């Protein structure tokens, strides 16, 4: 079995408002899979479906060859970890307390942690570079630090699939690269399948092995970055002018946003 996620003919609607129409795709085991698309294209809904937060009545969703319905809650939490978009927490948990909570799908009802759990949490904290913050309260952290705490908690779940909903959205560029590198390492060292929603097409081009481009709940294109990130498909999906060329780093495309103002400048238009 080399397929981590197998989705066939998946539909979803909030009331009458259809967000996903007949979506089918596969994610290979150990893939770095990035879902892109304009706002409202159904990316987050797809994410919530894969994580089991919401369930679809139609279509098929298999994880490692077993239908989603076959997993109980704790088993699902041991298979998939979900890192949501930034959640503000008003209760003063420490970083290590939060990371340890990731062990709860492996524990009994009271969540009494064993030595092993502590060891795993310690590794997750080290992996995400949070050692110096482990006793800090959540309420005292910056956005980038908070994001890494949630990632460390998810790693602590020891999942086979890691889902991230726009993990770089509110981070500065250094933290964006840091989070993406962390995921790359997680994939390489532990073989975790990474599935991520992103708005940043250039990060997607650089890190993604396979991309999925959604528009209005349907798949526009999917495959390796060079196939999906072409100027035609992107302009069709996002409905704006873009420039796509090869990245100076090589082997993947680079997308440049083009302002209407720049297009209309008399001397510049021909050079583009």
């Amino acid at each position, binding site marked *: 079995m080399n397929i981590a996620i197998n989705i066939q003919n998946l539909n979803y609607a909030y009331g009458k408002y259809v967000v996903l129409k007949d979506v089918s795709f596969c994610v290979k085991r150990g893939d770095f899979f990035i879902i892109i698309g304009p706002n409202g294209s159904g990316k987050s809904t797809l994410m*919530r479906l894969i994580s089991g937060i919401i369930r679809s009545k139609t279509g098929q969703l298999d994880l490692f060859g077993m239908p989603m319905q076959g997993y109980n809650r704790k088993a699902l*939490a041991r298979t998939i970890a979900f890192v949501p978009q930034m959640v503000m927490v008003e209760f003063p948990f420490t970083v290590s307390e939060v990371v340890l909570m990731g062990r709860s799908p492996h524990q009994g009802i009271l969540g*009494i942690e064993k030595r092993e759990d502590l060891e795993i949490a310690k590794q997750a904290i080290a992996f995400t570079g949070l050692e110096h913050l482990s006793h800090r309260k959540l309420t005292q952290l910056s956005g980038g630090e908070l994001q890494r705490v949630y990632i460390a908690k998810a790693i602590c779940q020891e999942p086979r699939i890691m889902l991230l909903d726009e993990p770089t959205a509110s981070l500065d560029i250094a933290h964006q690269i840091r989070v993406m590198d962390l995921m790359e390492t997680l994939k390489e060292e532990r073989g975790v399948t990474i599935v991520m929603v992103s708005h940043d097409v250039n990060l997607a081009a650089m890190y993604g092995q396979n991309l999925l481009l959604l528009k209005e709940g349907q798949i526009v294109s999917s495959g390796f970055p060079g196939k999906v990130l072409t100027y035609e498909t992107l302009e069709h999906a996002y409905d704006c002018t873009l420039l796509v060329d090869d990245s100076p780093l090589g082997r993947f495309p680079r997308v440049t946003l083009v302002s209407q103002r720049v297009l209309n400048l008399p001397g510049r238009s021909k050079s583009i």
Partner: protein
Amino acid sequence: MNTRAPFVLKRIFVVSFLLLILLGVGMFLGLSMGSSGSGMSPVLESLFGARGPDSALMDTIIWKIRFPRVLLSALVGATLSLGGLVFQALLRNPLAEPYILGISGGSAIGAITGILLGFSRFPGVAAAAFAGSIFTLFLILVMSSGQSIIKRDSLLLSGVMVNAFCSAIIMFLVSLTRDSRLHNIIFWLMGDLSSGDMHQVGILAATVLPCFCLIFFFSSPMNLLLMGKETAQTTGVNIKAVTLILLVVTSFAVSATVSQCGLVGFVGLVMPHLLRLLFGPDHRVLVPACVLGGGAYMVFCDLLARVLPEQGEIPAGVITAMIGAPLFVFLLKRSGR
């Protein structure tokens, strides 16, 4: 990361032990002080079987009058503190509390209706109180439904409105009453701990103690719920079931105390905050801490209520509100940024 964390169990025991001592001291003082003479020696003599000259009378006062009352205070304090803790976790709002949200008010309406209809205190009045609390709970959840429930303002505003409405209905019901029950109802409304005999205290204990145990088993899911609904759900928590069970169990325990001793406000706000400040936000520690610490707090408040005035006594609810309301404003101001 140090080796402190593995011993959550040890932490629970240490914290519980400390608060148990506090509760013990409070109960001992509660037994020794009162309008008919204070002093520790009669209690000690009574406890250890030593006989003084007029010990029979003192024995009666201590064990038939003061002891049920002290136990009742402890149970009420424990229930209300735990109620505050659970509501704060479920609504992810550190300012939530059964009294502020109007849940207590709702069960008071039920209880008064029950009293006016001439129900027996148990199970009639208690059941009416429970119905009232579930109804207000439902009302608040509908009013602040959807995403906005996370927002403190919409939730608190809904609660304030429900509470105001409940007060109006309570006043209306009281104004309908033309007989001697009136004084009792008003006194009871302000939080009255003097009513208990051993039998009633026993019923209350049998009602709320299983609730405490049940809530303790949900302390780990409560921790996860504070990290957000989606995080809790993807970490293996059945949030719908957990939320429903906790809301109903808590409302049940709170309405049991309301039907016994009326509206005691702000305990559920003060104690969880204080204990969280002292012992951190882990619910596995906080649930037992709220039971023991909340009980101790209420025993001390009741002691003040009995000892402060020259004659008679103040309702305990007055003391808790006098301490709690300013603290609420302080917390609101500090966390409001």
